[in-house]
Protein backbone atom coordinates (compact mmCIF):
# COMPACT_ATOMS: atom_id res chain seq x y z
CA UNK A 1 0.00 0.00 0.00
CA UNK A 2 1.35 3.41 -1.01
CA UNK A 3 0.21 6.68 0.51
CA UNK A 4 0.26 9.95 -1.39
CA UNK A 5 -0.21 13.38 0.17
CA UNK A 6 -1.57 16.26 -1.89
CA UNK A 7 -0.45 19.88 -1.68
CA UNK A 8 -3.31 20.66 0.72
CA UNK A 9 -2.60 17.79 3.08
CA UNK A 10 -5.11 15.18 1.90
CA UNK A 11 -3.81 11.62 1.91
CA UNK A 12 -4.69 8.84 -0.50
CA UNK A 13 -3.95 5.15 -0.13
CA UNK A 14 -3.45 3.11 -3.24
CA UNK A 15 -2.29 -0.35 -4.19
CA UNK A 16 1.20 -0.56 -5.60
CA UNK A 17 -0.16 -1.84 -8.88
CA UNK A 18 -2.08 1.44 -9.28
CA UNK A 19 0.72 3.65 -7.94
CA UNK A 20 3.15 2.49 -10.62
CA UNK A 21 0.83 3.90 -13.31
CA UNK A 22 1.99 7.30 -12.10
CA UNK A 23 5.51 7.07 -13.46
CA UNK A 24 6.82 9.90 -11.34
CA UNK A 25 5.64 8.10 -8.21
CA UNK A 26 7.03 4.80 -9.51
CA UNK A 27 10.45 6.40 -9.85
CA UNK A 28 10.22 7.86 -6.38
CA UNK A 29 9.25 4.48 -4.98
CA UNK A 30 12.28 2.90 -6.57
CA UNK A 31 14.60 5.64 -5.38
CA UNK A 32 13.57 6.14 -1.79
CA UNK A 33 10.21 6.66 -0.21
CA UNK A 34 8.71 3.17 -0.46
CA UNK A 35 7.63 3.05 3.16
CA UNK A 36 6.67 6.59 4.01
CA UNK A 37 4.08 8.97 2.70
CA UNK A 38 4.99 10.35 -0.73
CA UNK A 39 4.33 14.08 -1.02
CA UNK A 40 2.81 15.43 -4.24
CA UNK A 41 3.34 19.16 -3.73
CA UNK A 42 2.11 20.29 -7.13
CA UNK A 43 -1.31 18.71 -7.02
CA UNK A 44 -4.38 19.62 -4.96
CA UNK A 45 -6.43 16.98 -3.17
CA UNK A 46 -9.50 17.13 -5.40
CA UNK A 47 -7.37 16.82 -8.54
CA UNK A 48 -5.25 14.01 -7.14
CA UNK A 49 -8.47 12.20 -6.30
CA UNK A 50 -9.55 12.39 -9.93
CA UNK A 51 -6.17 11.20 -11.17
CA UNK A 52 -6.28 8.22 -8.85
CA UNK A 53 -9.85 7.43 -9.92
CA UNK A 54 -8.68 7.29 -13.56
CA UNK A 55 -5.67 5.10 -12.78
CA UNK A 56 -7.69 2.69 -10.65
CA UNK A 57 -10.22 2.23 -13.44
CA UNK A 58 -7.60 1.71 -16.12
CA UNK A 59 -5.45 -0.64 -14.05
CA UNK A 60 -8.52 -2.71 -13.25
CA UNK A 61 -9.34 -3.12 -16.92
CA UNK A 62 -5.93 -4.42 -17.92
CA UNK A 63 -5.28 -6.58 -14.84
CA UNK A 64 -8.62 -8.34 -14.69
CA UNK A 65 -9.21 -11.92 -15.68
CA UNK A 66 -11.04 -12.48 -18.94
CA UNK A 67 -14.50 -12.92 -17.49
CA UNK A 68 -14.42 -9.71 -15.44
CA UNK A 69 -12.55 -7.56 -17.94
CA UNK A 70 -14.18 -4.34 -19.06
CA UNK A 71 -14.63 -4.11 -22.81
CA UNK A 72 -12.81 -1.44 -24.78
CA UNK A 73 -16.12 0.16 -25.62
CA UNK A 74 -17.16 0.35 -21.97
CA UNK A 75 -13.82 1.83 -20.99
CA UNK A 76 -14.15 4.44 -23.75
CA UNK A 77 -17.61 5.29 -22.47
CA UNK A 78 -16.26 5.65 -18.94
CA UNK A 79 -13.50 7.94 -20.28
CA UNK A 80 -16.07 10.10 -22.09
CA UNK A 81 -17.94 10.61 -18.84
CA UNK A 82 -14.72 11.18 -16.91
CA UNK A 83 -13.70 14.15 -19.04
CA UNK A 84 -16.99 16.00 -18.63
CA UNK A 85 -15.35 18.63 -16.52
CA UNK A 86 -15.13 22.41 -16.34
CA UNK A 87 -12.17 24.00 -18.05
CA UNK A 88 -10.43 24.93 -14.79
CA UNK A 89 -10.44 21.30 -13.63
CA UNK A 90 -9.28 20.16 -17.08
CA UNK A 91 -6.34 22.52 -16.82
CA UNK A 92 -5.36 21.29 -13.36
CA UNK A 93 -5.71 17.69 -14.51
CA UNK A 94 -3.47 18.23 -17.53
CA UNK A 95 -0.79 19.79 -15.35
CA UNK A 96 -1.11 16.94 -12.84
CA UNK A 97 -1.03 14.20 -15.49
CA UNK A 98 2.08 15.79 -16.94
CA UNK A 99 3.82 16.12 -13.56
CA UNK A 100 2.87 12.60 -12.49
CA UNK A 101 3.78 11.28 -15.96
CA UNK A 102 0.63 9.32 -16.79
CA UNK A 103 0.73 9.05 -20.58
CA UNK A 104 -2.72 7.63 -21.26
CA UNK A 105 -4.44 10.26 -19.11
CA UNK A 106 -2.41 13.04 -20.70
CA UNK A 107 -3.32 11.77 -24.20
CA UNK A 108 -7.00 11.63 -23.27
CA UNK A 109 -6.97 15.17 -21.87
CA UNK A 110 -5.02 16.65 -24.80
CA UNK A 111 -7.41 15.07 -27.27
CA UNK A 112 -10.36 16.43 -25.27
CA UNK A 113 -8.97 19.95 -25.38
CA UNK A 114 -8.13 19.64 -29.10
CA UNK A 115 -11.71 18.57 -29.81
CA UNK A 116 -12.96 21.64 -27.93
CA UNK A 117 -10.77 23.87 -30.09
CA UNK A 118 -11.43 22.40 -33.55
CA UNK A 119 -13.26 24.72 -35.88
CA UNK A 120 -13.57 27.55 -33.36
CA UNK A 121 -12.55 31.15 -33.83
CA UNK A 122 -9.88 32.62 -31.51
CA UNK A 123 -12.49 34.63 -29.61
CA UNK A 124 -14.57 31.51 -28.99
CA UNK A 125 -11.51 29.67 -27.73
CA UNK A 126 -10.81 32.51 -25.30
CA UNK A 127 -14.36 32.35 -24.01
CA UNK A 128 -14.29 28.59 -23.52
CA UNK A 129 -11.01 28.60 -21.63
CA UNK A 130 -11.45 31.95 -19.93
CA UNK A 131 -8.33 33.44 -21.47
CA UNK A 132 -7.68 37.16 -21.66
CA UNK A 133 -6.67 38.76 -24.94
CA UNK A 134 -3.32 40.16 -23.89
CA UNK A 135 -1.84 41.14 -27.23
CA UNK A 136 0.01 44.43 -27.57
CA UNK A 137 -1.18 46.69 -30.40
CA UNK A 138 1.81 45.59 -32.52
CA UNK A 139 1.01 41.93 -31.91
CA UNK A 140 -2.64 42.55 -32.76
CA UNK A 141 -1.56 43.99 -36.10
CA UNK A 142 0.51 40.92 -36.83
CA UNK A 143 -2.32 38.60 -35.84
CA UNK A 144 -4.71 40.48 -38.09
CA UNK A 145 -2.33 40.11 -40.97
CA UNK A 146 -1.89 36.36 -40.41
CA UNK A 147 -5.63 35.86 -40.23
CA UNK A 148 -6.53 37.86 -43.26
CA UNK A 149 -7.24 37.30 -46.88
CA UNK A 150 -6.90 39.93 -49.53
CA UNK A 151 -9.08 38.96 -52.43
CA UNK A 152 -8.27 39.88 -55.96
Amino acid sequence: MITLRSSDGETFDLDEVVAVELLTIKNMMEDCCADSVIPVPNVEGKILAKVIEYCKKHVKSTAMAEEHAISDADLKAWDSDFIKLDQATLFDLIMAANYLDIKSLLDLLCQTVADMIKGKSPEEIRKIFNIKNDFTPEEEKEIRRENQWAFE
Partner: protein
Amino acid sequence: MAGWSQLPKDLLLLIAQRLNTRFDLLSLRSVCSSWHAFIPYSLHPLPSRFPILPTNGTSWGLYLSRRRILLLRLPESHCQSTTSSWLIKVEEDVPDMAHLVNPLSTFQFRHFPPNFQKKFAFSRFRVLELGQEYVLQYMNHRPSGEADEGSLHKGKVTFSCTSNGDDFVMLTIHVTGKLAMFRHGNKKLTLIDDMTSPCDDLIFFNGEFYAVDNTGRTVVVAIGSPPVLSLVADSVSGGNKKSLVESNGELLMVDTYFDRVIHSIMERAVQFKVFKLDQIRRVWVEIENLGDRILFLGEKSTFSAVASEFCGCAGNCIYYTNSFFFPCGQEDDAYTGIGIFNLENGNMDPLSSFPDYAKVIWPPPAWVYTDNIGGV
Protein backbone atom coordinates in the same frame (compact mmCIF):
# COMPACT_ATOMS: atom_id res chain seq x y z
CA MET B 1 -4.34 30.31 -9.84
CA ALA B 2 -2.64 29.73 -13.15
CA GLY B 3 -4.78 29.80 -16.25
CA TRP B 4 -4.62 28.33 -19.72
CA SER B 5 -2.43 31.14 -21.00
CA GLN B 6 0.22 29.79 -18.66
CA LEU B 7 0.11 26.32 -20.19
CA PRO B 8 3.71 25.18 -20.71
CA LYS B 9 4.96 25.07 -24.29
CA ASP B 10 5.35 21.31 -24.53
CA LEU B 11 1.79 20.71 -23.34
CA LEU B 12 0.39 23.27 -25.76
CA LEU B 13 2.28 21.57 -28.58
CA LEU B 14 0.87 18.19 -27.52
CA ILE B 15 -2.58 19.67 -28.01
CA ALA B 16 -1.62 21.43 -31.25
CA GLN B 17 -0.39 18.12 -32.73
CA ARG B 18 -3.94 16.87 -32.58
CA LEU B 19 -5.28 19.71 -34.71
CA ASN B 20 -5.42 18.82 -38.36
CA THR B 21 -5.98 22.00 -40.24
CA ARG B 22 -3.95 25.12 -40.78
CA PHE B 23 -6.90 27.23 -39.64
CA ASP B 24 -7.16 25.52 -36.28
CA LEU B 25 -3.46 26.12 -35.69
CA LEU B 26 -3.80 29.76 -36.73
CA SER B 27 -6.74 30.14 -34.36
CA LEU B 28 -4.69 28.70 -31.54
CA ARG B 29 -1.88 31.10 -32.33
CA SER B 30 -4.28 34.03 -32.18
CA VAL B 31 -5.63 33.39 -28.72
CA CYS B 32 -3.06 35.04 -26.46
CA SER B 33 0.50 36.25 -26.34
CA SER B 34 2.18 33.13 -24.93
CA TRP B 35 0.36 30.76 -27.30
CA HIS B 36 1.34 33.02 -30.17
CA ALA B 37 4.97 32.67 -29.15
CA PHE B 38 4.83 28.90 -28.74
CA ILE B 39 3.16 27.86 -31.99
CA PRO B 40 5.26 28.26 -35.13
CA TYR B 41 3.84 30.26 -38.02
CA SER B 42 5.15 28.49 -41.08
CA LEU B 43 2.71 25.70 -40.56
CA HIS B 44 2.54 24.77 -44.20
CA PRO B 45 5.88 25.43 -45.81
CA LEU B 46 4.41 24.51 -49.17
CA PRO B 47 3.10 27.46 -51.12
CA SER B 48 -0.29 27.06 -52.72
CA ARG B 49 1.28 26.83 -56.09
CA PHE B 50 4.46 24.99 -56.81
CA PRO B 51 6.24 23.77 -59.88
CA ILE B 52 6.04 20.27 -61.25
CA LEU B 53 7.92 20.53 -64.54
CA PRO B 54 10.50 21.55 -65.57
CA THR B 55 12.56 21.00 -62.50
CA ASN B 56 15.30 23.50 -63.11
CA GLY B 57 13.73 26.46 -61.34
CA THR B 58 12.24 28.47 -64.18
CA SER B 59 9.27 30.74 -63.66
CA TRP B 60 7.25 29.05 -66.34
CA GLY B 61 6.02 25.52 -66.71
CA LEU B 62 3.54 23.16 -65.19
CA TYR B 63 2.39 24.08 -61.72
CA LEU B 64 0.20 22.40 -59.18
CA SER B 65 -2.31 24.69 -57.51
CA ARG B 66 -3.80 23.76 -54.18
CA ARG B 67 -7.18 25.07 -53.19
CA ARG B 68 -8.93 24.62 -49.90
CA ILE B 69 -12.63 24.07 -49.53
CA LEU B 70 -13.81 25.80 -46.42
CA LEU B 71 -17.04 26.27 -44.58
CA LEU B 72 -17.14 29.61 -42.79
CA ARG B 73 -19.64 29.99 -40.01
CA LEU B 74 -20.55 32.61 -37.47
CA PRO B 75 -19.46 31.86 -33.93
CA GLU B 76 -22.38 30.47 -31.95
CA SER B 77 -23.32 33.59 -30.09
CA HIS B 78 -23.86 35.47 -33.31
CA CYS B 79 -26.13 33.07 -35.14
CA GLN B 80 -29.31 34.82 -36.02
CA SER B 81 -30.35 33.53 -39.38
CA THR B 82 -30.33 30.20 -41.11
CA THR B 83 -27.76 31.31 -43.69
CA SER B 84 -25.02 31.51 -41.16
CA SER B 85 -22.54 29.60 -43.30
CA TRP B 86 -20.55 30.33 -46.44
CA LEU B 87 -18.98 27.58 -48.53
CA ILE B 88 -15.89 28.72 -50.39
CA LYS B 89 -12.91 27.40 -52.23
CA VAL B 90 -9.81 29.50 -51.78
CA GLU B 91 -6.58 29.53 -53.66
CA GLU B 92 -3.84 31.47 -51.93
CA ASP B 93 -1.44 32.17 -54.76
CA VAL B 94 1.06 34.39 -53.09
CA PRO B 95 1.13 35.15 -49.39
CA ASP B 96 -1.89 37.27 -48.46
CA MET B 97 -3.54 37.25 -51.90
CA ALA B 98 -6.42 34.90 -52.45
CA HIS B 99 -8.78 33.88 -55.20
CA LEU B 100 -12.26 32.63 -54.64
CA VAL B 101 -13.38 29.77 -56.82
CA ASN B 102 -16.79 28.14 -57.08
CA PRO B 103 -16.63 25.19 -54.67
CA LEU B 104 -17.91 22.79 -57.29
CA SER B 105 -16.23 23.98 -60.45
CA THR B 106 -13.19 25.89 -61.64
CA PHE B 107 -15.03 29.15 -62.16
CA GLN B 108 -13.32 32.08 -60.44
CA PHE B 109 -15.44 34.71 -58.75
CA ARG B 110 -14.23 38.14 -59.69
CA HIS B 111 -17.13 40.47 -59.10
CA PHE B 112 -17.69 41.02 -55.43
CA PRO B 113 -20.66 42.91 -53.96
CA PRO B 114 -20.02 46.66 -53.67
CA ASN B 115 -19.52 46.70 -49.89
CA PHE B 116 -17.32 43.65 -49.79
CA GLN B 117 -14.09 44.40 -47.99
CA LYS B 118 -11.47 42.79 -50.11
CA LYS B 119 -9.30 42.38 -47.04
CA PHE B 120 -11.07 40.50 -44.33
CA ALA B 121 -10.08 38.64 -41.23
CA PHE B 122 -11.27 35.05 -41.20
CA SER B 123 -10.38 34.77 -37.53
CA ARG B 124 -13.80 36.22 -36.74
CA PHE B 125 -15.42 33.04 -37.95
CA ARG B 126 -15.42 29.36 -37.37
CA VAL B 127 -13.47 27.83 -40.21
CA LEU B 128 -13.97 24.19 -41.09
CA GLU B 129 -11.77 22.74 -43.80
CA LEU B 130 -13.85 20.26 -45.78
CA GLY B 131 -11.30 19.25 -48.37
CA GLN B 132 -8.54 20.15 -50.75
CA GLU B 133 -8.39 20.33 -54.51
CA TYR B 134 -5.39 20.14 -56.76
CA VAL B 135 -5.30 21.48 -60.29
CA LEU B 136 -2.49 21.41 -62.80
CA GLN B 137 -1.93 24.59 -64.74
CA TYR B 138 0.57 26.06 -67.12
CA MET B 139 2.10 29.26 -65.87
CA ASN B 140 3.53 31.84 -68.24
CA HIS B 141 4.56 29.47 -70.97
CA ARG B 142 3.23 26.38 -72.60
CA PRO B 143 5.98 24.47 -74.34
CA SER B 144 5.12 22.98 -77.69
CA GLY B 145 5.73 19.36 -78.34
CA GLU B 146 5.15 18.40 -74.72
CA ALA B 147 2.05 16.49 -75.65
CA ASP B 148 2.18 14.12 -72.73
CA GLU B 149 2.18 16.68 -70.00
CA GLY B 150 -0.08 19.04 -71.89
CA SER B 151 -3.01 16.71 -71.67
CA LEU B 152 -2.67 16.30 -67.95
CA HIS B 153 -4.74 19.17 -66.77
CA LYS B 154 -8.01 17.63 -67.80
CA GLY B 155 -7.84 14.79 -65.31
CA LYS B 156 -8.39 14.63 -61.58
CA VAL B 157 -5.28 15.11 -59.49
CA THR B 158 -4.48 13.83 -56.05
CA PHE B 159 -1.42 14.71 -54.10
CA SER B 160 0.47 13.87 -50.99
CA CYS B 161 3.59 15.36 -49.49
CA THR B 162 5.72 15.10 -46.40
CA SER B 163 5.07 17.69 -43.73
CA ASN B 164 8.08 19.78 -44.68
CA GLY B 165 7.41 19.52 -48.38
CA ASP B 166 10.69 17.95 -49.35
CA ASP B 167 9.07 14.96 -50.99
CA PHE B 168 5.79 14.62 -52.77
CA VAL B 169 3.79 12.29 -54.95
CA MET B 170 1.15 13.30 -57.45
CA LEU B 171 -1.30 10.91 -59.00
CA THR B 172 -3.51 11.86 -61.90
CA ILE B 173 -5.69 10.40 -64.63
CA HIS B 174 -4.01 10.59 -67.98
CA VAL B 175 -6.00 11.44 -71.09
CA THR B 176 -5.83 7.78 -72.10
CA GLY B 177 -7.65 6.81 -68.90
CA LYS B 178 -4.55 5.32 -67.36
CA LEU B 179 -3.20 6.26 -63.99
CA ALA B 180 -0.16 8.47 -64.09
CA MET B 181 2.24 9.17 -61.27
CA PHE B 182 4.76 11.88 -60.73
CA ARG B 183 7.25 11.92 -57.90
CA HIS B 184 9.45 14.69 -56.68
CA GLY B 185 12.63 14.54 -58.68
CA ASN B 186 11.16 12.79 -61.68
CA LYS B 187 11.56 14.24 -65.13
CA LYS B 188 8.26 13.06 -66.51
CA LEU B 189 5.08 11.20 -65.70
CA THR B 190 5.09 7.49 -65.17
CA LEU B 191 2.12 5.75 -66.68
CA ILE B 192 0.72 2.82 -64.72
CA ASP B 193 -0.64 0.15 -67.02
CA ASP B 194 -2.30 -2.20 -64.58
CA MET B 195 -5.83 -0.78 -64.50
CA THR B 196 -8.04 -2.99 -66.65
CA SER B 197 -10.60 -0.30 -67.46
CA PRO B 198 -10.20 3.47 -67.75
CA CYS B 199 -9.79 5.21 -64.41
CA ASP B 200 -12.71 7.36 -63.31
CA ASP B 201 -11.60 8.88 -60.05
CA LEU B 202 -8.84 9.15 -57.47
CA ILE B 203 -8.72 10.06 -53.83
CA PHE B 204 -6.13 10.33 -51.10
CA PHE B 205 -7.82 8.77 -48.09
CA ASN B 206 -6.42 7.61 -44.75
CA GLY B 207 -2.88 8.07 -45.96
CA GLU B 208 -3.30 6.03 -49.14
CA PHE B 209 -4.14 6.64 -52.80
CA TYR B 210 -7.31 4.95 -54.03
CA ALA B 211 -8.34 4.70 -57.68
CA VAL B 212 -11.63 3.51 -59.11
CA ASP B 213 -12.16 2.49 -62.69
CA ASN B 214 -15.18 2.76 -64.88
CA THR B 215 -16.62 -0.53 -63.61
CA GLY B 216 -16.30 0.36 -59.94
CA ARG B 217 -13.29 -1.85 -59.40
CA THR B 218 -11.19 -0.07 -56.81
CA VAL B 219 -7.52 -0.38 -55.94
CA VAL B 220 -5.01 1.09 -53.56
CA VAL B 221 -1.93 2.45 -55.29
CA ALA B 222 1.21 1.85 -53.27
CA ILE B 223 3.86 4.30 -54.38
CA GLY B 224 7.11 2.70 -55.34
CA SER B 225 9.24 1.71 -58.27
CA PRO B 226 7.19 0.26 -59.76
CA PRO B 227 3.92 1.29 -58.13
CA VAL B 228 1.84 -1.64 -56.90
CA LEU B 229 -1.94 -1.84 -57.16
CA SER B 230 -3.92 -3.93 -54.70
CA LEU B 231 -7.59 -4.72 -55.04
CA VAL B 232 -9.86 -3.14 -52.48
CA ALA B 233 -13.30 -3.73 -54.03
CA ASP B 234 -14.76 -5.51 -57.02
CA SER B 235 -16.79 -3.96 -59.79
CA VAL B 236 -20.40 -2.97 -59.45
CA SER B 237 -22.88 -3.00 -62.29
CA GLY B 238 -24.95 -0.05 -63.36
CA GLY B 239 -23.96 3.52 -63.87
CA ASN B 240 -21.62 5.41 -66.14
CA LYS B 241 -19.22 7.32 -63.94
CA LYS B 242 -17.76 6.48 -60.56
CA SER B 243 -16.63 9.02 -57.99
CA LEU B 244 -14.88 8.53 -54.68
CA VAL B 245 -15.73 10.72 -51.73
CA GLU B 246 -14.87 10.77 -48.06
CA SER B 247 -17.74 11.15 -45.63
CA ASN B 248 -17.51 11.01 -41.87
CA GLY B 249 -14.22 9.15 -41.94
CA GLU B 250 -15.46 6.54 -44.41
CA LEU B 251 -14.77 6.02 -48.09
CA LEU B 252 -17.88 6.15 -50.27
CA MET B 253 -18.38 5.67 -53.96
CA VAL B 254 -21.04 7.45 -55.98
CA ASP B 255 -22.18 5.90 -59.24
CA THR B 256 -23.65 8.45 -61.66
CA TYR B 257 -26.12 7.37 -64.31
CA PHE B 258 -26.15 9.49 -67.44
CA ASP B 259 -28.72 9.87 -70.14
CA ARG B 260 -28.01 11.26 -73.55
CA VAL B 261 -29.76 14.58 -74.09
CA ILE B 262 -31.97 14.21 -77.17
CA HIS B 263 -30.58 15.65 -80.41
CA SER B 264 -27.20 16.41 -78.94
CA ILE B 265 -24.03 14.78 -77.82
CA MET B 266 -24.41 16.10 -74.28
CA GLU B 267 -25.08 13.90 -71.29
CA ARG B 268 -27.22 14.63 -68.28
CA ALA B 269 -27.10 12.94 -64.90
CA VAL B 270 -30.36 11.19 -64.10
CA GLN B 271 -29.60 9.10 -61.05
CA PHE B 272 -27.02 8.47 -58.37
CA LYS B 273 -26.32 5.45 -56.24
CA VAL B 274 -24.12 5.57 -53.18
CA PHE B 275 -21.93 2.74 -51.92
CA LYS B 276 -19.97 2.13 -48.76
CA LEU B 277 -16.78 0.08 -48.71
CA ASP B 278 -16.83 -3.32 -47.03
CA GLN B 279 -13.11 -3.77 -46.66
CA ILE B 280 -13.29 -7.32 -45.41
CA ARG B 281 -15.43 -8.77 -48.16
CA ARG B 282 -13.89 -6.35 -50.68
CA VAL B 283 -17.14 -5.16 -52.13
CA TRP B 284 -19.08 -1.94 -52.45
CA VAL B 285 -22.36 -2.13 -50.55
CA GLU B 286 -25.17 0.16 -51.59
CA ILE B 287 -26.50 2.54 -48.96
CA GLU B 288 -29.97 4.00 -49.22
CA ASN B 289 -29.67 6.88 -46.84
CA LEU B 290 -26.90 9.35 -46.03
CA GLY B 291 -28.56 10.55 -42.86
CA ASP B 292 -27.35 13.98 -41.88
CA ARG B 293 -24.62 14.11 -44.53
CA ILE B 294 -24.39 15.88 -47.86
CA LEU B 295 -21.99 14.76 -50.59
CA PHE B 296 -20.49 17.20 -53.06
CA LEU B 297 -19.23 16.02 -56.43
CA GLY B 298 -17.27 18.85 -57.97
CA GLU B 299 -15.36 18.93 -61.22
CA LYS B 300 -11.96 18.50 -59.65
CA SER B 301 -12.68 17.40 -56.13
CA THR B 302 -15.22 15.76 -53.86
CA PHE B 303 -16.05 16.48 -50.26
CA SER B 304 -18.84 16.12 -47.73
CA ALA B 305 -20.48 18.10 -44.97
CA VAL B 306 -22.87 17.70 -42.09
CA ALA B 307 -26.21 19.13 -43.19
CA SER B 308 -26.98 20.93 -39.93
CA GLU B 309 -23.62 22.74 -40.06
CA PHE B 310 -24.01 23.53 -43.71
CA CYS B 311 -27.27 25.34 -44.14
CA GLY B 312 -29.73 23.99 -41.67
CA CYS B 313 -31.27 21.89 -44.42
CA ALA B 314 -31.94 18.19 -44.37
CA GLY B 315 -29.09 15.91 -45.35
CA ASN B 316 -29.25 12.82 -47.50
CA CYS B 317 -28.52 14.61 -50.74
CA ILE B 318 -25.80 15.04 -53.32
CA TYR B 319 -24.68 18.32 -54.86
CA TYR B 320 -23.25 17.67 -58.27
CA THR B 321 -22.11 19.57 -61.29
CA ASN B 322 -22.39 19.11 -65.00
CA SER B 323 -20.83 22.48 -65.56
CA PHE B 324 -18.63 21.37 -68.41
CA PHE B 325 -21.56 21.86 -70.71
CA PHE B 326 -23.10 24.84 -68.98
CA PRO B 327 -20.32 27.38 -69.23
CA CYS B 328 -20.40 29.93 -66.46
CA GLY B 329 -20.23 33.39 -67.93
CA GLN B 330 -21.08 35.78 -65.14
CA GLU B 331 -21.72 35.85 -61.45
CA ASP B 332 -25.43 35.28 -62.01
CA ASP B 333 -24.43 31.96 -63.33
CA ALA B 334 -22.69 31.04 -60.12
CA TYR B 335 -25.26 28.30 -59.70
CA THR B 336 -25.55 27.19 -63.30
CA GLY B 337 -24.85 23.55 -63.80
CA ILE B 338 -25.09 22.73 -60.11
CA GLY B 339 -27.87 20.40 -59.14
CA ILE B 340 -29.09 18.73 -55.99
CA PHE B 341 -30.08 15.08 -55.97
CA ASN B 342 -32.28 13.99 -53.10
CA LEU B 343 -31.67 10.35 -52.17
CA GLU B 344 -34.97 9.98 -50.42
CA ASN B 345 -37.27 10.74 -53.34
CA GLY B 346 -34.87 10.68 -56.29
CA ASN B 347 -35.62 14.30 -57.19
CA MET B 348 -33.07 16.27 -59.11
CA ASP B 349 -33.32 20.02 -59.08
CA PRO B 350 -31.01 22.85 -60.04
CA LEU B 351 -29.46 24.69 -57.11
CA SER B 352 -31.18 27.87 -58.21
CA SER B 353 -34.56 26.37 -57.19
CA PHE B 354 -33.44 26.51 -53.59
CA PRO B 355 -32.43 30.12 -52.90
CA ASP B 356 -31.64 29.36 -49.25
CA TYR B 357 -29.12 26.69 -50.19
CA ALA B 358 -27.76 28.67 -53.13
CA LYS B 359 -27.01 31.60 -50.83
CA VAL B 360 -24.50 29.45 -48.97
CA ILE B 361 -22.28 29.51 -52.06
CA TRP B 362 -22.73 32.98 -53.57
CA PRO B 363 -23.03 35.90 -53.03
CA PRO B 364 -21.00 36.35 -49.85
CA PRO B 365 -23.41 36.61 -46.89
CA ALA B 366 -23.67 40.09 -45.39
CA TRP B 367 -22.30 38.99 -42.05
CA VAL B 368 -18.99 38.18 -43.73
CA TYR B 369 -18.21 41.75 -44.62
CA THR B 370 -20.28 43.89 -42.28
CA ASP B 371 -17.81 44.36 -39.49
CA ASN B 372 -20.12 44.29 -36.50
CA ILE B 373 -18.39 41.38 -34.87
CA GLY B 374 -15.08 43.11 -34.51
CA GLY B 375 -11.97 42.03 -32.71
CA VAL B 376 -9.28 39.64 -33.75
